[in-house]
């Protein structure tokens, strides 16, 4: 019944190993919760924490850097989430970092992830508050999805209507799908189109040939126009002459203009004739007098014909005229 030395040693060993195992276990659990590391505290305000719990991990760019240390309701729409962050990571978090709440896998724990900001803000310090961004929750996604699916259902029913009417041969598309005559016509049209295009091609070819021949052949007018440089020069001189002639015509016209102006304004003979109304009146009366004179002369001549002295002469004239008419 006595304790041997080896028994004591073995007991001591067992006790030490057991205690060590327990202590290391506790240590590792504590380490996960950052109990033995120097930490600093930062806060973020959320409207909805989506089931985040005290002790959930905090991630910065995907690395676990701390744990959520407290969730506190500030008012009816604001929740303050405070977190303990490892102190050695402090130099990497800037003040414009953004905190979001996400899920670690489909059925996993919630995590608070801090996303680095874009700017180069100063480094965060103990007790600071960073911006937060609330992600869309699963409920919101589901409600959006339900709206989309309703829309999809309406769309599908419409599509169904369209396809059935198409199959039944209604509408242009249905005709296209079902009408064999139409198909034949279409084919014929296509064939015609082909022919036309072929014709167009040949026409264009001919045109091409014509143009090239025009370019090459210098006998024709166009060829000369296009190619003969001497004729071109001549044409140029002609056009130049035409230009000078037109200039001269212009000066002549200007002179004529001046003459007419002169006529209108000055007291020359022509102008006197044209413009003096008294003269015109006297001329008129003169002409009237002449008319009256000739009338009276005519009466005098008739009287002469019937006079016995000259009657014979007039009869003789009449007879002569009749004889000539008989011949």
């Amino acid at each position, binding site marked *: 019944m006595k*304790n041997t030395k080896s028994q004591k040693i073995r*007991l001591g060993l067992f006790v030490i190993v*057991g205690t060590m195992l327990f202590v290391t276990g506790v240590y590792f659990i504590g380490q996960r919760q950052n109990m033995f590391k120097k930490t600093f505290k930062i806060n973020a305000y959320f409207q909805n924490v989506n089931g985040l719990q005290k002790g959930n991990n905090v991630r910065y760019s995907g690395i676990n850097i701390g744990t959520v240390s407290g969730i506190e309701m500030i008012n009816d729409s604001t929740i303050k989430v405070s977190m303990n962050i490892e102190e050695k990571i402090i130099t990497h978090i800037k003040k414009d970092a953004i905190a979001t709440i996400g899920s670690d896998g489909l059925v996993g724990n919630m995590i608070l992830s801090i996303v680095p900001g874009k700017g180069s803000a100063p480094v965060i310090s103990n007790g600071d508050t960073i911006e937060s961004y609330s992600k869309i929750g699963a409920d919101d996604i589901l409600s959006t999805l339900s709206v989309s699916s309703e829309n999809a259902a309406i769309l599908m029913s419409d599509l169904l209507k369209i396809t059935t009417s198409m199959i039944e041969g209604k509408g242009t598309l249905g005709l296209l799908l079902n009408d064999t005559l139409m198909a034949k016509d279409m084919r014929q049209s296509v064939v015609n189109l082909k022919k036309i295009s072929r014709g167009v091609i040949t026409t264009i070819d001919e045109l091409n040939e014509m143009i090239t021949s025009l370019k090459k052949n210098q006998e024709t007018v166009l060829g000369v126009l296009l190619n003969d440089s001497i004729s071109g020069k001549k044409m140029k001189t002609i056009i130049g002459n035409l230009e000078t002639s037109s200039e001269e015509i212009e000066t002549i016209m200007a002179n004529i203009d001046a003459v007419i102006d002169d006529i209108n304004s000055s007291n020359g003979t022509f102008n006197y004739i044209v413009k003096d109304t008294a003269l015109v009146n006297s001329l008129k009366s003169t002409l009237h007098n002449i008319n009256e004179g000739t009338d009276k002369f005519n009466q005098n001549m008739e009287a002469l014909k019937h006079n016995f002295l000259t009657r014979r002469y007039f009869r003789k004239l009449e007879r002569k005229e009749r004889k000539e008419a008989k011949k």
Partner: protein
Amino acid sequence: MFGINKIKPRIDDFLVEIGALSYFSGRFFREVFKRPFEFKELLRQCFNMGNRSLLLVGITGFIIGLVLTLQTRPTLQEFGAVSWMPSMVGISIVREIGPMITALVCAGRIGSGIGAELGSMRVTEQIDAMEVSGTNPFKYLVVTRVLAITLMLPLLVVVGDAVALYGSYLVEHLKGDVSFNLYFNQVFDSLEFGDIIPATVKSFFFGFAIGIVGCFKGYYCNKGTEGVGKAANSAVVFTSLLLFVIDFIAVFVADIFYEL
């Protein structure tokens, strides 16, 4: 009336037993802080109960870890959640299976041992002889044994947990190519103080229950060889039952404290 008459003595017996056990426990707490302390006997009992149970606890733990993993794996695979294996096995072993299996194994090995040992001492009137010779048999026999198993069981539980987790790791390593580091990290990521502290506190109570019931059954053993066997037997049965009751209470209390 007949039924009540038949049941009543049993209820009386049960209540008497509970009352006697309470007195016995009270006496233990009175005696444990009184001089002289039987250090040598305590160490001997610690060695007996601690070191000599190591192999048993180790093998049971290893097999439990192995089997738990093997059994759960196909189901988790169906859900595509094999990566949750270490967390699941770790939590279930540390929280419940480790302490419970270790305590039950120790109840079988140590509880029955104490019951038989003290019973036979009572039968052969060694305890009476001690009382006559002036040695306090309660202090020498009961206090040392109860204290020893109360101190040793938590350590055995820790070792058992470690071995069980290693067994689980082996299966994961062989079947799923999981590295030790990954397994280790995943287990400790999922564990919290709320898992390990209540489990450890619980195992102190388990140890105390094993020791006190074994000693009680042996100390008040009936005369005769039959009494020894009965003492050993009832020690194991009563202890096992008590362990589950304590477990339930412990989980209940831990639930309040840690809001699991």
